[in-house]
């Protein structure tokens, strides 16, 4: 057993996993307020990356300006989605809202294809591809940067949910009717959660766009992001972070063992197994909350 190699697999797996977490945090934000997994989060992430490209490469703005500007634009888009589409569905069965997010995802994929075409573009963050050695272990710099962004967002949201606005959002997640009864604007709260998730989509879009290029494939991150969110418990940001690390490590280390045996493709199998087993064995995930039942 080569321990250096194994730890290299584990560490890089954990870093990749935190990039899944980066994506999954957006899912959790929306789930908390609307009780649906947002199937359009992949589409939003892709749009986030394209908007950054449009502002930087096409309009010529420097990246340090283009990224925050894209975040502002996406923040507005998130609010807009609630205003135009979701508000009409208030009080309808949750599965209708789920279908709406699916429709939104298809729409976002179509519109990006129409505007920006199908060829892959790169973000070019300027992060060096020189290998970085921690002792004997090689890590990718861009993954390290992305993991840092994920952790920073995690901390930011943990703090945010302690503020008055954050507490109101958590109240909305608990009970719409009770929220209305004390004058909380549920609509604005849901809009805010979409807006924040759209900002997270910019961060995920930029990092993942840097790693794998900006094209339609970016929206497929939804599959791994959803797996992480479900494993973490769907409504827990801490859960999303820890589940991301777990999935990343299991995927990377597991694939190294399994690939020679099954001849490739084992990453997908591992992700599928994690998702299916979580739903079957532990439907509330690692940190998901149960509805409280007092006896």
């Amino acid at each position, binding site marked *: 057993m080569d321990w250096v190699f194994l730890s290299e697999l584990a560490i890089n797996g954990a870093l990749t996993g935190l990039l899944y977490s980066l994506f999954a945090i957006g899912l959790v934000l929306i789930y908390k307020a609307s009780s649906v997994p947002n199937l359009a989060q992949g589409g939003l992430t892709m749009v986030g990356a394209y908007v950054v490209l449009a502002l930087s490469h096409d309009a010529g703005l420097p990246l340090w300006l283009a990224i925050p500007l894209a975040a502002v634009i996406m923040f507005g888009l998130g609010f807009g989605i609630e205003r135009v589409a979701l508000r009409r569905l208030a009080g309808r069965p949750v599965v209708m809202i789920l279908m709406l997010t699916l429709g939104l995802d298809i729409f976002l994929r179509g519109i990006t294809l129409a505007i920006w075409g199908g060829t892959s573009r790169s973000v070019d963050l300027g992060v060096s591809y020189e290998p970085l050695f921690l002792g004997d272990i090689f890590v990718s710099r861009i993954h390290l940067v992305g993991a840092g962004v994920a952790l920073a967002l995690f901390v930011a949201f943990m703090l945010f949910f302690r503020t008055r606005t954050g507490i109101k959002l958590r109240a909305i*997640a608990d009970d719409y009717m009770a929220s209305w009864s004390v004058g909380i604007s549920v609509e604005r709260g849901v809009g805010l959660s979409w807006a924040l998730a759209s900002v997270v989509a910019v961060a995920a879009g930029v990092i993942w766009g840097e790693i794998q290029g900006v094209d339609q494939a970016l929206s497929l991150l939804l599959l791994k992001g959803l797996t992480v969110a479900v494993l973490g418990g769907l409504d827990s940001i801490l859960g999303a972070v820890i589940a991301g690390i777990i999935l990343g490590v299991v995927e990377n280390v597991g694939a190294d063992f399994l690939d020679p045996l099954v001849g490739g493709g084992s990453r997908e199998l591992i992700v599928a197994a994690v998702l299916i087993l979580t739903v079957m064995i532990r439907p509330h995930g690692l940190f998901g909350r149960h509805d*409280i039942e007092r006896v």
Partner: protein
Amino acid sequence: MQEKVEAEHILSMNSVEVLYDNVMLAIKGVSVKVPKGEMIALLGSNGAGKSTTLKAISGLLKAERGRISRGEVTFQGTDITEVLAQNRVGMGICHVIEGRRVFEHLTPDENLTAAAPRGMSRSALNAENEKIYDYFPRLAERRNSQAGYLSGGEQQMLAIGRALVTQPKLLMLDEPSLGLAPFLVEEIFGILQKINQEEGVSVLLVEQNALAALEIVSQGYLIENGRVVMHGTAEALKSNSDIQEFYLGGGEETDFHNVKHYSRRKRWLS
């Protein structure tokens, strides 16, 4: 004389009809008035339309696809029939909805914070919280535990406290005694009376527990089948023979759950 009395009503509801889903007529011309600073009870059995009446006043009807199809609601002289629920809270109407419904995953402290009006300063909120914990010392001990695990009585206290944070002028409570032991009902009603006296908050109390409610209010309305079938002072209602027979029982406490529906209806609606 009549006009002067009118002016002193903080709330008046005139011949209000409510439709759910555009077809289900839940209340059929209800008129209820709350004199400023007083406590009024709304009595009636299951399905009579008590909660619907409160929702028409708070605006929460909309969340259940209900609407006022006739009549109007005025609060402090302003017609609020078309005002959004969240803005009615801002005007000073707060509705403690049926079934306690605290924010279960939040602590009592956070429940109170969630209800803070926009623009309330942190120090004002803290002062408000301390005042509420003074009214409900039981709650103070558990202020940092998850609200979902509080006892039924503590949750009801929290629901009332949470409503007080919104600075109501009219506090409406939907069956606060439901499922609580008699000593707790007495404690909570005592506190409501204290809040009414100390803060001048007007109270509209929906109850099936007529005996307890009539002890603390000045007037009561009896609703049956979506209509007001009786209105009078608490004293008059307590001594009314029908009410005595069916609602107050022969000395022992009876509430509407135990009374056969058809016999009551025959008396008041024929």
